[in-house]
C-alpha cells in the first residue's frame, strides 16, 4: 500500500484535482453549488471572484472585442497564479484532456509502440506556431478562433453541460496520440499548452535533478510527457527550468534513486554563487 502511494502519489492527487474540479463544476451547473460555477473558459469562484482563461482573453482582444473589467481581472488572476506555480500545472493538474492523452500514452508504453516508432516526425515547437495562428485568425475572422475548435473546451463543456458529438473530439485526440504521434496533442499542437509554457517560464515550483544520486535508468524520460525538458538527467545537477515541464511529478514518482524532487526555483544570483564556489 505504501509503495503504491509512493509510486503514484502525484498521479493520484492529480486525478483527484482534475475529477474533483469537474465534479464541482457539474454541481455548479446542475445542483447550484456556488463553490465554482462556469467552466474552464471562465468561472466565478464562490460567486464573487472572477477567473478567466487568459489565452481566450488574448484571442478576444485580437478579435477586437470590448474587454470587460471582469474578464481582464479574471485573466490576470489566473495568469498570476500560474506564473507562480508553473504555467503548465494547468495541463497536468486541471485540464480534463490530460486524462485522455495520459491514457493513450500509457497504452503506447504498454504496447511498446515507442520502441517501434522511435523517431517522432513533428516538432514540439508546432504549438507556438498554433498560438500565433490562433491570434492571427482571431484578428482576421473577428472571432475567438481557437475557442471555436478547442477540444479542451469541447471536453469540459461536454462534462459540465452535456455531450453532443463531443465524444468524437475526445476519440480523435485519443487515437491521434495513440497511433500517430506520441504526446501528439498536449506535447506538440495544443496552443493553450504553448501559451502556458510561455507563462510558466518564470514559475517558482521546479523539479530538481540531483545527478550524484542518478543511476541513469531513464525511467523518468520514459514516462515524461515532455521528455526534452529532462535533458540534464544523468549529466548535470540542474533544475528543470523549461516552461514546457508540466510539473506532473511522474518523473519524481518513478525515480527509485531519489534523484528528482520538487523544489523552489533558485534565484539566478544564488546559482552563480554556487557555481563560483
Amino acid at each position, binding site marked *: 500500500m505504501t509503495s503504491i502511494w509512493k509510486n503514484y502519489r502525484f498521479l493520484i492527487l492529480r486525478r483527484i484535482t482534475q475529477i474533483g474540479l469537474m465534479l464541482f463544476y457539474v454541481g*455548479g*451547473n446542475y445542483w447550484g453549488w456556488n463553490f465554482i*460555477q*462556469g*467552466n474552464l*473558459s*471562465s*468561472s*466565478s469562484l464562490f460567486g464573487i471572484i*472572477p477567473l*478567466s*482563461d487568459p489565452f*481566450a*482573453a488574448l484571442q*478576444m482582444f485580437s*478579435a*477586437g*472585442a*470590448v*474587454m*470587460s473589467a*471582469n*474578464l481582464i481581472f*479574471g485573466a490576470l488572476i489566473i495568469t498570476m497564479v500560474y506564473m507562480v506555480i508553473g504555467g503548465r500545472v494547468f495541463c497536468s493538474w486541471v485540464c480534463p484532456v490530460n486524462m485522455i492523452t495520459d491514457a493513450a500514452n500509457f497504452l503506447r508504453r504498454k504496447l511498446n509502440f515507442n520502441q517501434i516508432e522511435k523517431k517522432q516526425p513533428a516538432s514540439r515547437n*508546432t504549438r507556438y*506556431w*498554433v498560438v500565433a*495562428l490562433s491570434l*492571427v*485568425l482571431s484578428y*482576421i*475572422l*473577428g*472571432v*475567438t*478562433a481557437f*475557442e*471555436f*475548435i478547442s477540444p479542451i*473546451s*469541447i471536453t469540459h*463543456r*461536454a462534462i*459540465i*453541460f*452535456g*455531450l*453532443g*458529438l*463531443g465524444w*468524437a*473530439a475526445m476519440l480523435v485526440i485519443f487515437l491521434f496520440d495513440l497511433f500517430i504521434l506520441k504526446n501528439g496533442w498536449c506535447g506538440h499542437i495544443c496552443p493553450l499548452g504553448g501559451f502556458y509554457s510561455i507563462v510558466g517560464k518564470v514559475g517558482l515550483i521546479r523539479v530538481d535533478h540531483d545527478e550524484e544520486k542518478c543511476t541513469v535508468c531513464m525511467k523518468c524520460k520514459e514516462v515524461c510527457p515532455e521528455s526534452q525538458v529532462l535533458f540534464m538527467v544523468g549529466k548535470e545537477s540542474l533544475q528543470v527550468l523549461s516552461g514546457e515541464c508540466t510539473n506532473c511529478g511522474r518523473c519524481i514518482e518513478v525515480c527509485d534513486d531519489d534523484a528528482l524532487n520538487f523544489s523552489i526555483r533558485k534565484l539566478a544570483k544564488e546559482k552563480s554563487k554556487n557555481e563560483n564556489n
Partner: protein
Amino acid sequence: MVSERRRFILGTARALGIAALSGLVWSAYVDEVTSNKLILRPPGAINEEDFLATCIKCGMCVEACPFDTLSLAKPGSNKPLGTPYFEPRDVACAMCPDIPCVPVCPTGALDITKVTTNNELNINLAKMGVAIVDTKNCIAYWGIQCDACYRACPLMDKAIYLEYEKNERTGKHAFLKPIVDSDVCTGCGLCEHACVTKEAAIIILPREVALGKVGDHYIKGWDKKDEARLKNAHSETTTTELSKDRAVDSLNDMGGLLDD
C-alpha cells in the same frame, strides 16, 4: 552535402505551408458555423458579430436560467460551438423580471444596459428575435377560433393583438387574426411554444433576418420625430448622358417625335 542554409529555407517553407493549410481549413470551419444566421441568443445579447468575438462560452447564463431554456451549442449542431442559444418550440424564454441570465455574463456579451431603464432591469426591453405569423397555415386566419399565441404572449394586446374582421364566407362569423407588433415583441417565443399547429405557424426569427429596413429616404412626414432621421440621409446625384441638358429642354425637344 546539404547546406545548413538549404535546410533552414526548406524547414521554414514547410512550416509556412502547414500553417497556411491548417489556417485555411480552420477558417473555413469557422466561416461555416458562423454563417448560420437563425440562432436566437439570450436577452441583452449584443449584435451577432460582436457577440461571436466577445462570448467566452463559459455557460454562466445557461446555469443561471431557472427554466433550462438556454443551452450551449454542442459539436454537430452546426452552430458556433459553445455559444448560448434557445429554441422556443422546445423551451421558450419565460421573461423573468430579475433576468438572472444577463448580470452573470463576465464579458459583456450579454449587455445589461440593453435591458435596463432608470437603473431597473426591464425584460420587456429584450430583443431576442421577433415573432412572424405564417398566415396561410395559421388556423385563426382560416376562421377557426384560436388565440393560443395571443393568450401565451406576456405582452398580450401589445406584442400580439387580435384584429377582428368579418368572415364573408359564412356571413355570420368573425376572424380573430393575431398580428405582431415588431416594435414591442421581445422574441421570447412563448407564442411559438403555444402554437397548436403541427409545425408552429408563428415562429421567432432573429430580427436582422426577419425585419426590413426603410433607409433614410422615406420619412413619415406626419411624425415630427421621424423627420430627425433625415439628418443621416446622404444625397447622391446620378450623372448620365441625359444630364447634359436641363430637364425642361429635354421635355421640349420634339426632334424625331413629330412628322415633318
